């Protein structure tokens, strides 16, 4: 009896000691700077740098935004996927994880990463020239159906997110077979629309808004299920005849699969504080992102369901490898 008690006490002491060590080890993440791989340049990079900056305030060590562009995101994803699952390498990701995978540019898919948090949402918009005389999505669809000319639509690249969005939209409107997609890089599609070389463009709202204010372009609808704060008077495509269309592009943070849950939780908390700060919200608004925090589990479900939708769409378009 005595010995049992003694051994019990010893065990308890050991357990407490181990637990203590464990707590200490956990408390120490991060012991060195966390590297956040940024996959794209332009405004995505700007907002990524700001996010890293704000997250640094909530962690013992800084988060450093490191740009690894190229391959439509595949280069950066491959880099992060190949690093240790210890939370020191995270990626500023987006739906490009699915598009890159289905194009056959990466041998792994979203399951190679464990989600940390969703950060923002961007909703593509459809715009036409004001002098085209199309007041609504329906006007445009009817005109295309009645005419014998194909509609030229400016997008960001074949297989890009704006391409998939347009394809889904025009499919719902029943004019999917009367479209010519013209891919432009570097945000040139709005200019091509202004210069009358294309008839419509599907891009990010921020690229259209100044031209709508000046009266040159009109934005017909946005592709999410709801309206967006930047364009309160513009209907969602679903409201004006596009059935149940609901396509938005998310950006968020992820780490290699197998990263310990407590490390993920810490990063998630730092991200949450950064995203919900006034500074991030106002910067995101100005740049045309919508700050939209989601915790890791919900974000994971979203990634999986979007992956299925994107895979299906790309299959229909013959873009899937």
């Amino acid at each position, binding site marked *: 009896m005595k010995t049992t008690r003694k051994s019990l006490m010893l065990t308890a002491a050991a357990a407490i000691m181990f637990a203590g060590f464990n707590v200490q080890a956990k408390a120490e993440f991060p012991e060195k700077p966390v590297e956040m791989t940024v996959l794209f340049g332009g405004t995505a990079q700007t907002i990524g740098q700001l996010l890293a900056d704000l997250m640094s305030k909530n962690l013992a060590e800084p988060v450093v935004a490191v*740009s690894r562009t190229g391959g439509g995101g595949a280069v950066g994803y491959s880099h992060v996927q190949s690093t240790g699952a210890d939370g020191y390498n995270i990626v500023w990701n987006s739906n490009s994880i699915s598009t890159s995978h289905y194009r056959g540019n990466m041998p792994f898919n979203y399951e190679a990463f464990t989600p940390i948090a969703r950060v923002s949402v961007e909703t593509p918009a459809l715009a036409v020239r004001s002098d085209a005389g199309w007041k609504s999505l329906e006007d445009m669809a009817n005109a295309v159906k009645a005419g014998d000319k194909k509609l030229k639509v400016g997008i960001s690249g074949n*297989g890009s997110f704006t391409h998939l969005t347009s394809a889904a939209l025009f499919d719902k409107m029943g004019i999917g077979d009367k479209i010519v997609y013209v*891919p432009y*890089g570097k945000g040139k599609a709005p200019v091509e629309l202004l210069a009358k070389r294309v008839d419509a463009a599907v891009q990010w709202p921020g690229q259209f808004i*100044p031209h709508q204010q000046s009266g040159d372009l009109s934005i017909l609808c946005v592709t999410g299920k709801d309206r967006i704060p930047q364009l309160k008077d513009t209907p969602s495509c679903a409201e004006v005849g596009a059935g149940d269309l609901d396509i938005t592009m998310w950006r968020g943070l992820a780490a290699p699969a197998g990263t310990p849950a407590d490390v993920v939780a810490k990063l998630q908390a730092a991200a949450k504080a950064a995203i919900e700060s006034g500074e991030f919200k106002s910067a995101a608004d100005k740049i045309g992102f919508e700050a939209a925090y989601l915790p890791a589990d919900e974000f994971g479900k979203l990634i999986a369901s979007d992956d299925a939708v994107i895979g299906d769409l790309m299959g229909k378009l013959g873009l899937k490898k």
Partner: protein
Amino acid sequence: MDAFYSALGAISDPFTLLAIVAGSIIGIVFGSIPGLTFSMALALVLPLTFRFETGAAIGMLLGTYIGGMTGGSVSAILLGIPGTPSAAATVLDGYKMTRNGRAGLALGGAVLASGFGGIFSLLVMIVSVDMVARLAIQFGPVEIFALVLFGLSTICGLAEKSLIRGMIAGIIGLLLMTIGLDDMDGVARMTFGWTPLLQGVDLLVAMVGLFAVPQIMKTLIDYRTDSAFKLNASDIRSELPTRKQLRSSFWLMVRCSGLGTAIGSIPGTGGPIAAFLAYDHARRFSKKPERFGKGSLEGVMAPEASNNAVTGGAMIPLLSLGIPGDPATAVMLGGLLIHGLVPGPMLFTQNKPEVYLIYLAILVAYVAVVVFQYFGIRGFVKLLKIPPHLMAVGILIMCGVGTFAIRNSFLDIYMMVGVGLIGYLLTRARIPVTPIILGLVLGPTLEREFRTAMIMSEGNWSIFFSSISAIIFYLLTIGVIGFHVFSQIREAKTARRDNEQQQGAS
């Protein structure tokens, strides 16, 4: 006018001035070190500016952009390695001038031409931003394709003695650029299924490889064989251009600045094309074309005036349409947006004070850059007193660091070395490397615009002849190539006749 005064007030804030000057210096430093570019400097400076006031933030970004554009000429002239892609044309004559012991003159000419080009483009922007923007968007895929094709014809002028060798080099450049992910269709090309290769050959990596590596190898080989090129310390003067030299090239600078502004204002073209076209133009219309390629001051001033005029030109579509023309202006766009300035047609009505502030900041940045670089010449030329073999090692290290820093990729360092070895072998085979750069710079644009035009016309070739300006560029291209081939045939004929006469006489 109130808007102007409020901008004047904002710019005379000491912190804003300090930010512009600091940006200019950062830009010059990044621009002048081979491998580090101003696009990189801008990305590093951007987070700093998040918490600045609008004036200081935009001033610092503009200063960095402008400092970087002019700084690229320093290493182009002194080391024969362009600091930025836009300075590749400056190497041709600038480095020859250094070898002739006239580095100071070349640097002085370069910085004055840079300042001239920049301020010229600023004036064009102020006077006619709306008109230029409206004209520039008329340049669609067909017109840009034709313009780039014309740009490729300058290979003729760069091919030195043999047109065939120039073409070989140009085609190598075009082929190298196809490696990686194709932006339009999102498919991998020439990657053999290896994901890291999807990033392709970065222009800057290839440029550092082609210019720096062969030269470093040559320096070290020459050092071992003791036939090193030695520059007497007494030969290095910080000689500056005389007023007469400046006056005689005034109209050349005006023409090249005009060219640079025009090309800069067309989204998707940019500095390198402008610089090569300006160099070709200067050589073609020079009173002493034989001096080109051997150390002509005009051959330094023309591309420098032109590539700096691109800065003002590129600001036109950025501010009036919200379209970034190159990676550097894409970072600028982020900086403007985060401070609530939305480029586009409304900017000029809603944010008048900020627009004036941008104009003033460009002016201040150019003054700062010219002053720093002009008075820095005496310091820069002292670099030449370092023994070449020691310098070569230092350059190699900087190039390694710089190529890695572009996108944090080790593969890029191997790529630089690989491209450099190929470049060394090519120079041994007397194939010039500059046309490779031209192929690398112009290839992606040429291909993209061609394919976009074909998609728009649904495969109908007649679209390429649907625009007057495109046809003019085709004719110019044919003219340049025809002229070159014709004069080569004539040269060959006279050479043969002289030969026969000599044989007859002996």
